[in-house]
Structures are given as C-alpha cells and as structure tokens.
C-alpha cells in the first residue's frame, strides 16, 4: 500500500530539516548552481544576441533579396527593380516589421588628404531608421533627411582616416552599368559612430535617388533588406518572399548570408545545454552525498517503516519527494536570484577593457544579459529531471536494507 502524498510530504519535509546545516549547505549549492545556469546563460545569450543583432539588424536585416550573381559580384550590374505586385503585398503584410531597398556598391571615397575603399549605400533614411539604424549613432551633424539628400554621412573612424571633417567635401567614385566611372562630390553632413569600428570605416550613406542618378540606373536597387518578427525564425518569411519574386532572384535569410553567425547561434544553443548539464553534474555529487548521508543516518528508521508495512516503492517515493523538495527550494532561490541579477544588470556590463577582443567576435563592449524563457524552463527542467535521476540511486539503496538488519542498526 502506498502512503498518501500528504503523508509522504510531511515526512520528507521534516526529514529534510533534521540536519538543517547540511540541508542549508546543499541548498546554497543548488541555489548558486541554478543562479549560474540561468545568469551565465543570459549573459552568453546577450552576447550572442548582440553579435547577431550587430550583424544583421539595421543593414542586412533578417532576409535579403538580390539579383542572381550579386553576392559573387556586388556591383551595379546585378540589380533589382523596385518591389511591386506580389512582393509588395508580402512586404506590406504582418510578417514584415520593416523593409528597405538600397543601392549597395563598392566605391572609393576621397578627401583632400586620402582615399579609402568603402561600401556605398544609397538609402531612404526613413526606411533605414525603421529597419534599425539608430539616429543616436550620429555624433556630428545630421543623418540624411530624404532619399534625394545631396549630403553624405560617414563613420567617425573614416573621418579620421580621410583627415577631413564635417562640412568638407569628398568625392565618391564607382562604376556604372557600362563599366564607366561614375563619380560625384558630396558634402559631409553627418558623422556616425558604430559599435564596431570596422563599420565606421567601411560604410558610407548617401541618398538613394542621388546614387541612382549618379550610376544611371533609374529606380533599380541592389538589394532589398527585410526585417521579420524575430531573427530566430526567418524561414517563413523567406518562403513567402520566394513565392513572390521571379525565380532568378535570390532570397536568403541571414542564417545563409552569415554562416559564422548562424553557427554561433547553433553552438550557443548546444553550449547552453552542455553548460547546464555540467553545472548540474557538479551539483549532483553533493546531492547524492547529502541523500546517502541522510539515508545512512536513517537506516533504522527505514527498517522500521518497512517493518510496519511500507512498501519499498513508498520508501523510494519518500526519498524522491525529499530530494524534490530540496531541489525545489534551491530552484526557487536560484531563479529569484538569477532574475534579480539580470534585472539589476539590465543596463549592461561594461567590458570595454576587452573591447578589441569583443569586436573581433562581432560583439560590442557592453554585455547585456538576455533571458529567454526557454532557457529558464530548460535550466529548471535539467535540475528537476537530472535531480530525480541522481536521487534514484540513494532511494534504491534505501530499499535494499532488510528490515531486521536495519532495525538492529544504532
């Protein structure tokens, strides 16, 4: 016969606190373990999330549309017409948060002092802002006001490299579809900062219509960048867009455009699970030891319960309930502590001391913990499931004592 759960719970709860010092130490260990699982995961997620967002938001977007061959040869020769028909319908749908069409060609920018190879982006500033370009990134002057704004916005680092300044003129030179030189003079109207210095050096912004006119390509564009609902789930958006564009146009998600970032994300997902399991493995030794000690001290009592008619399975349940209570308390404290830490550090941790190293990985020098509910659920599940498995050995051991031997123990 099995004891009702209320009875088992009472027995388990009271047994838990028989040696309150040992229980508190184990609780502390579980709390710290759970805290580290959740918080470190949030920190790592934040770092990867930052890397991914740095990599894909504002410029690449979640999905890009190009003419066939553009990725191999990102010149003006491979162009798209502006969205219309079925594609325009998709871009207006709820699947799309924002989109922008732009010119994107290699160019050379020259000042009086120096010149640099850059990526010339001809943009509609309103569309780019909705795609994610942050106006606060403009540190001097202003951003472009419209797609026919005659000014140019360059990065802080590029400004230094060209030894020029706000208000000065620069010349931008590229190739038109006939492979002739297309060039134009621009006044520097704005300077931007980016999380990554490499972006500041490599990208310049000009009005889309101005660049279209400079290159003589009418209303054609080089790429259309689309932002969906979440960077983790671009597949449905890719499918919808593919069905709406001609077959020779290339529609790719950021996962395909940036395999490094994509693998980082997959590695991160795997790492999170491994990290949690490793933490728990370390905890489990303590848990097994605690339970074994508790059982060793209660051999006679276990023998008594068997003698009174408690089935071996009920003994196992009682030990498991005791273990679950211990784990539950540790989980509660660990979760609360982790969430409190994440909230406390919501403004980020400044790691600018290793900014260069972070930039090499594509991450910024501020680390923000990002808690995703699946990670929280996973951490708790890992602890509970592995905790139960770990507790089975001590619980089974408890049933192996013969009642008469156990009763004879002191």
């Amino acid at each position: 016969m099995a004891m009702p759960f209320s009875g088992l719970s009472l027995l388990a709860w009271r047994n838990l606190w028989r040696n309150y010092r040992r229980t508190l130490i184990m609780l502390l260990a579980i709390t710290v373990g759970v805290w580290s699982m959740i918080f470190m995961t949030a920190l790592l997620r934040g770092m990867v999330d930052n890397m991914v967002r740095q990599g894909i938001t504002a410029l690449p977007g979640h999905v890009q549309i190009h003419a066939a061959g553009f990725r191999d040869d990102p010149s003006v020769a491979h162009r798209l017409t502006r969205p219309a028909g079925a594609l325009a319908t998709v871009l207006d749908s709820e699947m799309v948060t924002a989109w922008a069409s732009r010119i994107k060609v290699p160019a050379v920018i020259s000042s009086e002092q120096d010149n640099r190879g850059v990526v010339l982006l001809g943009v509609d500033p309103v569309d780019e802002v909705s795609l994610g370009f942050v106006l606060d990134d403009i540190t001097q002057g202003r951003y472009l006001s419209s797609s026919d704004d005659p000014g140019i916005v360059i990065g802080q680092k590029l400004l230094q490299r060209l030894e020029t300044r706000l208000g000065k003129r620069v010349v931008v030179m590229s190739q038109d579809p006939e492979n002739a030189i297309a060039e134009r003079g621009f006044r520097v109207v704005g300077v931007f900062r980016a999380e990554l210095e490499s972006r500041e050096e490599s990208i310049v912004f000009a009005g889309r219509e101005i660049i279209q006119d400079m290159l003589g390509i009418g209303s054609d564009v080089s790429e259309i960048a689309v932002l969906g609902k979440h960077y983790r789930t671009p597949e449905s958006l890719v499918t919808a867009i593919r069905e709406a564009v001609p077959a020779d146009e290339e529609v790719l998600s950021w996962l395909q455009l940036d395999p490094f970032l994509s693998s980082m994300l997959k590695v991160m997902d795997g790492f999170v699970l491994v990290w949690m399991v490793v933490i728990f493995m370390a905890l489990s030794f303590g848990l097994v030891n605690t339970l074994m000690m508790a059982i060793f001290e209660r051999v006679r009592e276990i023998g008594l319960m068997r003698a009174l008619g408690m089935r071996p399975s009920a003994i196992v349940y009682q030990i498991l309930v005791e273990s679950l209570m211990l784990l539950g308390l540790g989980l509660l404290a660990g979760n609360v502590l982790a969430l409190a830490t994440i909230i406390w550090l919501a403004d980020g941790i400044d790691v600018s001391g290793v900014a260069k190293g972070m930039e090499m990985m594509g991450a910024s020098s501020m680390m923000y913990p990002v808690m995703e509910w699946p990670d929280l659920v996973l951490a708790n599940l890992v602890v509970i499931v592995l905790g139960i498995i770990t507790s089975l050995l001590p619980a089974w051991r408890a049933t192996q004592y013969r009642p008469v031997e156990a009763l004879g123990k002191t």
Partner: protein
Amino acid sequence: MSAISCIDMCKYYRQGDAVIKGLDHVSLEIDQGSFICLSGPSGSGKTTLLNAIGGLDTLDSGQISIDGERVDLLDKAELADLRLFHIGFVFQAYNLIPVLSARENIEFVMQVQGVSAAVRRQRSSEILKEVGLEGMEDRRPAQLSGGQQQRVAVARAIVSQPKLVLADEPTANLDSNSMERLMSRFRELNRVHKVTFLIATHDHRVMQWADRRISMEDGRITRDELQAGKGTPGA
C-alpha cells in the same frame, strides 16, 4: 486449520567461524485468538521467532504459514502488505519515527493503510487516552520518557486492530500500573476481537496473563504448556 503454522524452522547466524542457532528445527502451531508468552534467556531465539513469523527475517529452512498462506514464499511487497494489514509489531527498542509526534506515530500505520484522516484522528485519540498519554499527542519521541515512548509504540501496534500482534518486551520500562493497563487492553483485544498475541518477555507478571507459555533455549522450544491466563474466565 491453525492461524499460524511453523514447520521445522531453522535460522542460523554466523559470527566468524562460530554458528549461532537462532532457530533450530522449531515447529509450532498457533490458533487464532491465542494469547501466548515466549520466555527464555537472552539469545534463546524469541526475537528470531517473532521476526520470522512477522516476515522481517528469512529462514534458512522450514516454512511458515499464516491463515494457510506461506509467509516464506511472499515477495517484499506482499510481505509489506501482510505486516501492514494483519500484523502489529512492538519492538524491543520502541522504534518510533523521530520526526513525527506521538499522535502521528500512532497514526502512521493507518495512514499507510489509507484510513481517512477523521477516522485516524478518532482512533488515535481513543488509544492515547487508553495508554495514558492524553495531552502528549504533539510531543516528539525525544520529548517523551522511555516508558511513554513504549506506550506510543504499543498504541501504534494495536490501533489498527491487526489479527496478530508480535510484541518483543512490550512492558519493559513500564511501571506496574501501566503494565497492568496495557496487558488488560491486550486481553480485551484478544477476547473481543480474537487478536492473536505472541509476546516475548522476561517479565513474570506478563507471563501470568498468557494462556500458553512457550519456553525457548538455544533456538529450541524446551517447554510448551497451557495455563489459565490472567484476565480470562477461570483464571
């Protein structure tokens, strides 16, 4: 058919090279409703016999049947059920669960049996009064004297009215009044509900209550005689 039938039971213990005979070819028939005392010096096999009949220990050879069912052939779960529903134990060393109160210890067996909380409460209250522990329901074993703990253990054994009570020195640490009350209660259960009692004891005052006295020595039954037990008509 006897309630308890023990045939040629043998149980040996090894201590180094020495072999100690716990039970040495012991055969015994016990009728339902018997009130039996087991006597004998320490190491004579009294506890071993009680443990074997209660399914707490295994035999090296021989067989035990309770109501026709072979106890020695039952598995762990079946033995647990046998002890739970049909046998009450009083151990030599009280053996209470230290984290439970007196009332909770008494109710423990009933709780495992699945008896409702209300019935458990009622029965435990009655039995606490009977054994003179009213007012001490919420004390834990560490807060009770040896005699009080013994009374809780006895109360636990009989509260669910089992068919068989196996008691090992149940009156140790009890004063005379308590002993008399306890034995009187045992006798009442025996008389009214036909509960079979098998009591191992050194106490001659307890032996006077038995209808049958079995003496043991070196794992063997040396004497088995009937008597008019105290508390029975004609005693």
